[in-house]
């Protein structure tokens, strides 16, 4: 018995049990414990802590509001096209800048360039030139997912050879970064479509003079995204619906007044609020 000796503190006993004490210390502590009922009891209690923790549910149901938020955020991410593109740093030769840029993307997106052009659900960015280890034809997958006929290409890819710019999303965020020259200029024009500048101007007009014609126009989208509708206007062949996104006005060019985010004619534009 070494009862007159000071007991090792509980955390040392815990470390003994966990096997992380150095050999000399472990021997010393073990020698004490072997003759000390109090420390044996403490070791028992330490084991019971683990037993109690193991009895806690390892899974907790995600609350409804969280699940909704996350699925909305993921839908927006999917729409932006940046995530569906293979991003295998180093998988493709000559892709270093792109890989670097992709790693920077989250910050770039969060920083929201002055006009953030986000792509659409159907316009999934695809690395057509991938040659990745998965080796599947992702362009076909994207087409099946509702993308337009022309081959899509991630605007993130420096070696984009298709000239298609429908996925032009990351390009806008590229403007926030300096050394991604190959993707910068592409996105400011959306060939064969209404230019971003025109859409942006239309959004500003609606913000200044909010009307919705007909009255229900754009409500389906507003409901879907959970954002208040500011107003609508006919632009080109579609209907521009402006939603109030707290810090910005989002302009969605939809096929019809009842369209949702999967029936858009252009990547939606985001106009930061003036104040």
């Amino acid at each position, binding site marked *: 018995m070494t009862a007159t000796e*000071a007991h*090792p503190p509980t955390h040392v006993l*815990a470390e003994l*049990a966990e096997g992380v004490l150095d050999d000399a210390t472990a021997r010393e502590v073990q020698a004490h414990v072997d003759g000390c009922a109090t420390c044996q009891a403490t070791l028992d209690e330490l084991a019971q802590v683990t037993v109690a923790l193991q009895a806690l549910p390892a*899974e*907790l149901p995600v609350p409804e509001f969280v699940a909704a*938020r996350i699925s909305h955020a993921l839908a927006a991410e999917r729409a932006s096209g940046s995530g569906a*593109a293979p*991003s295998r740093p180093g998988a493709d030769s000559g892709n270093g800048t792109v890989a670097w840029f992709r790693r920077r993307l989250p910050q770039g997106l969060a920083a929201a360039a002055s006009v953030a052009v986000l792509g659409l659900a159907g316009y*999934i960015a695809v690395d057509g030139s991938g040659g990745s280890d998965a080796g599947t034809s992702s362009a076909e997958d994207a087409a099946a997912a509702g993308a337009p006929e022309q081959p899509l290409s991630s605007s993130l890819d420096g070696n984009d050879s298709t000239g298609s710019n429908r996925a032009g999303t990351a390009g806008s965020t590229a403007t926030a970064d300096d050394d991604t020259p190959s993707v910068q200029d592409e996105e400011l024009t959306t060939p064969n479509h209404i230019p971003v500048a025109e859409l942006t101007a239309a959004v500003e007009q609606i913000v200044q003079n909010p009307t919705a014609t007909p009255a229900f126009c754009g409500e389906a989208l507003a409901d879907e995204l959970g954002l208040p509708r500011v107003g609508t206007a006919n632009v080109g062949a579609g209907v521009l619906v402006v939603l109030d996104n707290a810090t910005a006005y989002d302009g969605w060019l939809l096929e019809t007044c009842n369209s949702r985010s999967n029936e858009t004619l252009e990547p939606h534009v985001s106009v930061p609020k003036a104040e």
Partner: protein
Amino acid sequence: MTQSAPGPRVPDEELLRQHVDGDPDAFGELVKRHQDRMWAVALRTLGDPHDAADALQDALINAFRRAGSFRSESAVTTWLHRIVVNACLDRVRHAAARPADPVAFDGTEIPGVAPATEPSSDPAERTALRVDLEQALATLPADQRLPLLLVDVEGFPVAEAAEMLGLPVGTVKSRCARARAKLVPLLAPGRLSATGNATGNHGGGGDVPSGTPQGTGGEHR
């Protein structure tokens, strides 16, 4: 481990590959499989549902984008949880200026709880025990709470938890040990009456002299 076995369903790795290849539904399925566990980690790490929701959302967006960088030497769960853990730690750091733990837990509110080895058949009592445990967990510093959560609550092997935390295995074990030591006086029945409060780190009983000349067993890195 409560994660349901893959069984006949598509393995996680395959879902992730499908996502990278452009399948619009694959990532959602992956999230559905793992979200409750990731939520448990985020909520218990951050303590606040809104912070936890922010962290989980950040993490999942990050995972969505970085799926292509997944390396198959680790399990998808490990990879996902590593991202969740990092998102949580980011928030812990940013929230450092704020009072981190809404529960001011000084031990005085703990009733003597039944030892977990003899689970009470009374559901109310069990709930009480669980609440006490959750509160006790919340008192731990984040750098100890997370390892303990991952290992003891989530049941991940220490090596996997170490990978999620980006820490050496020895460090994870050491932090778990210290965290358990802190929980002993909070959870052991009769301990409170013996020590008066729960702030001491000596758990040997009321007659324990504090401090010892024995090895202090610092963290092993």
